[in-house]
């Protein structure tokens, strides 16, 4: 029962956090210089046209009225329409959310097993040249800006040799395999970005455990090192590993705007940056809610998995 209560409590806090976030976003966008009417009309906006557009968009009403109305509709499941282009937000966001998730899942499918394997290998051969090389190389990758990784991949694999497309201009009616092919380079770039972090944590968690008595016992019994790591150390080191994996999964959904821009990938990040730029509050709210909820739910999942995986946490004193 303890687990269910915990989940309920955390979900409650999560909802509260999301509510606070929407309030903060409203305030933040309000304080930003300029408003939607000005940004739609651009540099050449005449004052009376701006005023007319403000009236049409309902921006002439005070913030709390607009927020209240938005919240009321939202609680009934209506995300509203984009103020800037009058399209239903659910429709506007739907395809982009799917595309973002597609990219995140594809990158995770490549990156997570790779990171685990490298981490385990590095732990197995710790303090050898192999371990040190992997450590240096991954550190190097961590410290490269992701857009540079993107540009280098494009320069090599799209411009020099024409193996993959330079822009991932995927459309909903593309067959799955074509989508995958079109997304090859962004997936590779994201893999480079996240593998290092996960791999290092995997290695650290396992090495940490190697000093505990039960591993030493196993070693004394003469069990092979690889077997010890896979069967004894890895399961017990899962909690921190899961944590770092989840953190990186969240990043793959939430933090990829730069990669989207470099590869012209039509995901949510670009939509959010655009919407902030033009001050399209309802769209910003929707994006931030999706990102916030993703983060909260993934974190919750990580905690639940850790608790399930660790009996001591399941039955706290």
């Amino acid at each position: 029962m303890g687990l269910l209560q915990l989940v309920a409590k955390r979900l409650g806090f999560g909802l509260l956090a999301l509510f606070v976030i929407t309030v903060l976003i409203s305030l933040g966008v309000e304080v930003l210089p300029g408003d939607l009417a000005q940004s739609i009309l651009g540099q050449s906006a005449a004052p009376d046209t701006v005023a007319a557009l403000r009236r049409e968009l309902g921006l002439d009403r005070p913030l709390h009225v607009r927020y209240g109305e938005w919240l009321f509709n939202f609680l009934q499941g209506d995300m509203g329409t984009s103020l800037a282009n009058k399209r239903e937000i659910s429709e506007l966001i739907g395809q982009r959310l799917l595309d973002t998730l597609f990219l995140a899942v594809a990158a995770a499918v490549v990156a997570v097993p790779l990171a685990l394997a490298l981490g385990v290998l590095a732990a197995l051969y710790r303090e050898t040249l192999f371990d040190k090389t992997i450590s240096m190389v991954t550190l190097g990758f961590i410290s490269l800006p992701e857009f540079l990784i993107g540009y280098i991949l494009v320069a090599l694999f799209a411009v020099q040799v024409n193996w993959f497309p330079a822009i991932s201009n995927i459309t909903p009616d593309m067959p799955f395999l074509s989508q995958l092919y079109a997304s090859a380079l962004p997936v590779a770039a994201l893999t480079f970005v996240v593998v290092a972090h996960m791999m290092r944590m995997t290695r650290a968690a396992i090495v940490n455990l190697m000093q505990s008595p039960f591993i030493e016992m196993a070693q004394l019994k003469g069990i092979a090192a690889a077997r010890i790591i896979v069967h004894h150390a890895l399961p017990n080191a899962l909690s921190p590993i899961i944590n770092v994996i989840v953190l990186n999964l969240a990043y793959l959904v939430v933090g990829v705007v730069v990669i989207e821009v470099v590869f012209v990938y039509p995901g949510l990040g670009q939509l959010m940056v655009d919407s902030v730029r033009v001050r399209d509050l309802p769209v910003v709210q929707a994006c931030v809610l999706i990102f916030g909820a993703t983060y909260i739910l993934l974190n919750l999942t990580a905690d639940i998995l850790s608790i399930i995986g660790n009996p001591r946490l399941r039955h706290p004193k």
Partner: protein
Amino acid sequence: MTQIKQLETLLRQGKISRRDFLKRAGALGAAGAAPLSMLGASPAFAAKRGGRLRLGLAGGSTDDTLDPGTITDFFMQVLTHAIRSNVTEIAPDGSLVGDLAESWEGAPGAKEWNFVIRRGVEFHNGKTLTAADVVASLRHHIRPDSTSAMKGPLEQIESLRALSPRLMQVKLKTGNADFPYTLTDYHLGVWPEDESPLQGTGTGPFILGDFEPGVRASARRNPNYHKEGRPFFDELAITAIEDASARSNALRAGEVDAINRVEYKTANLMDRLPGINVLSITGTGHYTIPMFADVAPFNDVNVRRALRWAIDREALLQTIINGHGAVGNDLPIARHQPFYNTSLEQRTYDPDKAKFHLKQAGLSSLDVQVSTADAAFSGAVDAAVLYKEHAAKAGINIDVVRESSDGYWSNVWLKKPWVFCFWGGRPTQDQMWTVAYQKGADWNDNHWYNDRFQSLLLQARAEVDEELRREMYWEMQELHWDEGATIVPLFNNFVSGVSSKIATTGTISGTAEMDGYRATERWWFA
């Protein structure tokens, strides 16, 4: 001329770069419009039908809509010209020609204009175009609750009527000899009167397929287009690519056939690539540094003169736009535009003259603040820092204030007394002076209200005699050159990257990038 031909062949074969070509052609005395015509152009005009034109364009945003009144950037400007037609059009050579209008006539005094609409033009939905459609489309911008950017410029209209299915009459509040030019504006495409513009129906060269704001748009050839033989492409696909490197990568990888806004710093590198031509076209766009002429110390004409002599335009031309442009002469009018005053001395960098004018103002040194951000134009911060170094040699201490790019146009421009700014320019002198230099204009960013200048502006607008107009515009330019409050250091080129598979008619329009937004109907696959 044979030498030019040889050069042209070398250029086509990629044996010399465009830059070399320009240099050598210039040495042969073949400067001017000629070099532009050499880029993949076939003088015989053997345009071929077919193919799918893929454009990768900057200037698309997720908040784009098909409402022409709120179009602000390049993606939609190209798309609206692909699906809609205007009443009039600026031809590649700069002359005004009819698009939907077959002919037009202004009554004496230029207060009344009658446009004869072309016969038998069909919308994409099969409906035949009438003058009523044109009137309805124009009214969209001038209705009381209009949200269109054209509301101000069209305020000159007193009445608008369809006299018959083929005759539109426009009456103006005051005479305007350039009114037919106004109708070439990219906001003023025509759609059926019984439809919303959001449906995207028009009479343009292409019929809109799908449109995903900020992502892509596609269209197919309009078989009933009113211009004989055009367009040449069967299909059109536009992809929004905001990142400049991503754009050039897409072009190099052959995923698009043409891109806009090539970064100045990479333009020459791109030009050296095989299979890609760089079109660097002088337009009307220019960088400005306007000061409020009614705020101290800028209210002293000698201070303004000193600041104008204290900027090294040539250095900025090379550093900020890598030579892709021309130095400005403190006029918002490009050299190739009608009635440009060619008699004025070109201002150069002259710290001594600047010092002299400072002394005239009774000052030995000057401390001023200028606001800048890269929102004004790419490189505006660097330009300000360079200007600071130039001016220091004349005893002028410029404090460069870096503003936030976000909100620059709403919080800094028109608000702070001295700022960096960008103007796209206008096709006519009247439009340019009216929009930013007329007293009381919404976007007057310099507050320079010379009485003679202001009255000449109104006189010239209604003057139909070309020679008299020229005299008036020359005097206005001289006044502005001498006393005005806006520094115009540079005119920047439009730089596009185009696959060598694409051919053009030979003359590329300077009104806007991509052949005046109309590459979709003016270009073809060689």
